[in-house]
């Protein structure tokens, strides 16, 4: 089918399509970070986990021919990184933010080191589901090509919100995140809970990385991540540690990122590079508006070093 001229309608459509495409890794990384931070720990190393997940997912998908085995491998690799981070941060006097940066360098280094042979080969892509079958307009169909991982991310956000609200596991994570002492008093081991929460968070970040290399942009290279892992920390704060807000924040962030390319597609190329800043300006602006010098951040886990 040839593209139909749909005029300026192309802009919101391209933003919607871009938001769905670009936001998926943000959804997974921010949900992972959300879980970790709710347990009272911050993992700034998710950028390295994401890149390593992208590499290991791509490599395993290429070796086995199945993109889903790739996603699984990325989750396992991410979990190992998360567990390692969680184990290190257990020790008193170790700064979790600095360890995060070191883990970021280590993860990226290891991914580039081991991923060198996989830059050329082509691995199978993850499948997408076309939700645009009702339309004859190819742009609509293209915009509504929704990847299975995006749908999984949406479901996961709902599940995680339910978990925090009404399950025992969620309660345990919340107690540990709010007070180390209270958790100890009721017989919980905060170190173990945080270790597991950091491991699970890492696994989700690994899946986010696999999406990058197995769907969009869909190949493994050293420049695959543009800071998605680092931004997760900002998105979680922006989302006030609420999984469902994480989903919307990621979608908003993805949509803002798609603004520049969408405008360019209808011939507006003025300030093309400035539009790269759009998601960051939007996040910062909303943070400034919703913060207040008088009260602590709403919804923040009390044991989180970031909010002290």
């Amino acid at each position, binding site marked *: 089918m040839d593209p139909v001229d749909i005029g300026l309608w192309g802009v919101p459509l391209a933003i919607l399509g871009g938001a769905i495409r670009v936001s998926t890794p943000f959804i997974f990384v921010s949900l992972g970070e959300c879980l970790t931070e709710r347990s009272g720990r911050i993992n700034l190393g998710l950028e390295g986990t994401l890149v390593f997940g992208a590499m290991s997912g791509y490599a395993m998908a290429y070796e086995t021919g199945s993109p889903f085995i790739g996603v699984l491998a990325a989750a396992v690799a991410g979990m190992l990184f998360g567990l390692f981070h969680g184990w290190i941060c257990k020790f*008193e006097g170790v700064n979790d933010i600095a360890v995060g940066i070191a883990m970021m360098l280590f993860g990226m280094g290891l991914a580039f*080191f081991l991923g060198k042979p996989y830059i050329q080969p082509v691995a199978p892509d993850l499948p997408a589901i076309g939700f645009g079958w009702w339309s004859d307009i190819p742009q609509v169909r293209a915009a509504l090509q929704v990847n299975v991982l995006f749908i999984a991310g949406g479901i996961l956000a709902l599940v995680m919100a339910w978990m925090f609200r009404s399950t025992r596991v969620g309660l345990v994570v919340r107690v540990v995140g709010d007070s180390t002492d209270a958790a100890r008093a009721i017989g919980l081991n905060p170190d173990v809970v945080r270790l597991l929460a950091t491991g699970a968070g890492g696994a989700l970040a690994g899946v986010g990385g696999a999406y990058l290399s197995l769907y969009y942009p869909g190949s493994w290279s050293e420049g695959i991540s543009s800071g998605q892992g680092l931004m997760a920390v900002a998105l979680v704060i922006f989302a006030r540690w609420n999984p469902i807000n994480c989903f919307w924040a990621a979608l908003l962030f993805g949509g803002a990122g798609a603004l520049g390319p969408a405008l360019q597609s209808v011939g507006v190329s003025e300030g093309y590079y400035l539009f790269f800043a759009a998601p960051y300006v939007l996040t910062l602006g909303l*943070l400034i508006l919703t913060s207040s010098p008088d009260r602590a951040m709403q919804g923040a886990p009390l044991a989180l070093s970031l909010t002290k």
Partner: protein
Amino acid sequence: MRLMLGAEAVVIPLGALLAGFAAFSLFLLVLGKSPVEFFALVWKAGFSSAFSWQNTLSRSAPLVLAALCVALPARLGLVVIGGEGAIVLGGLAAGVTGLAVGGLPGVLGMGLMAAAGMVLGGLWIGAVGALRIKRGVNETISSLLMAYIAIALFNHFVEGLFRDPGSLNKPSTAPLAESLRVGDMPFISAHWGVVAGALACILCWILLEKTTLGFAARIAGDNIRAAQVQGLPVGPLVIGFTALGGAFAGLAGFFEVSAVHGSANGSLIAGYGYTGILVAFLARHNPLAIFPVAILLGGFEASSGLIQRRMDLPDATILVFQGMVFIIILLSEALYGRFAIFTPAYWERR
């Protein structure tokens, strides 16, 4: 006894460094490569000759200044991780100023360029401090977001308004006049940014340890409420310290543009801001320790090329090596106060 108490701060990091080397040796052995050859090459390329020292020192200069952008706010209990933005914008300001002051004598022109870089860098990170004080916005997050915004602004100007039409493949500002290029120091041919970095470290140490401002900052860093009750000017302290840190990062941008690249271009976005965070944490935010730590890291990075060629290892090898060493050094923080031999009680009993 005092000697032994001080020794803890030297013995633990050195031991951790050796443990990091051992862990990386294991990694190399698993891959079937020789650790002996690796460390010999790091020594050769980073520290063995005048030429290698020149390379190492030049690479360490921006790391020193970027680390100060972390260490100064850290004294107030703030974790600023967006120094990269101040480096990039400082470099842009310096490069653009350089085009306007070409007619002035070199030293004056360079002074104005450095000032432009420092002012813009200072405003950029100072804004992070102001947002924290005035609006309660978390400084870690805002500085990170602003680093990405800074890079977008940088690309916008270098690709647009200030682009030299002659720079085809790599968009750059117009090349600086020869008189505005910071030259090499006598005897060791590394650029003057090394001296500037060393001086900045000493100045910061004096500020933090020997002045009432530094003392007030430490109290505010320990307990912000207590500092406010005491009537300390917490707001101006936060904004001042973040702005000063940003100014040093902007100065790093000036030296990269004037001494290394010759114009503002994409090479400025090299991640010095992020490596600087590690330098600051490894130095435990002590300005005097920042300098040697930065030299160590600069030496590691200087050896990357030689290791790639001689040992047939990918260029990411140094990244893996750095990551391992850093993690283990940070892990060693848990050991402080654990060894009886370094505590006063051990020596009083004797």
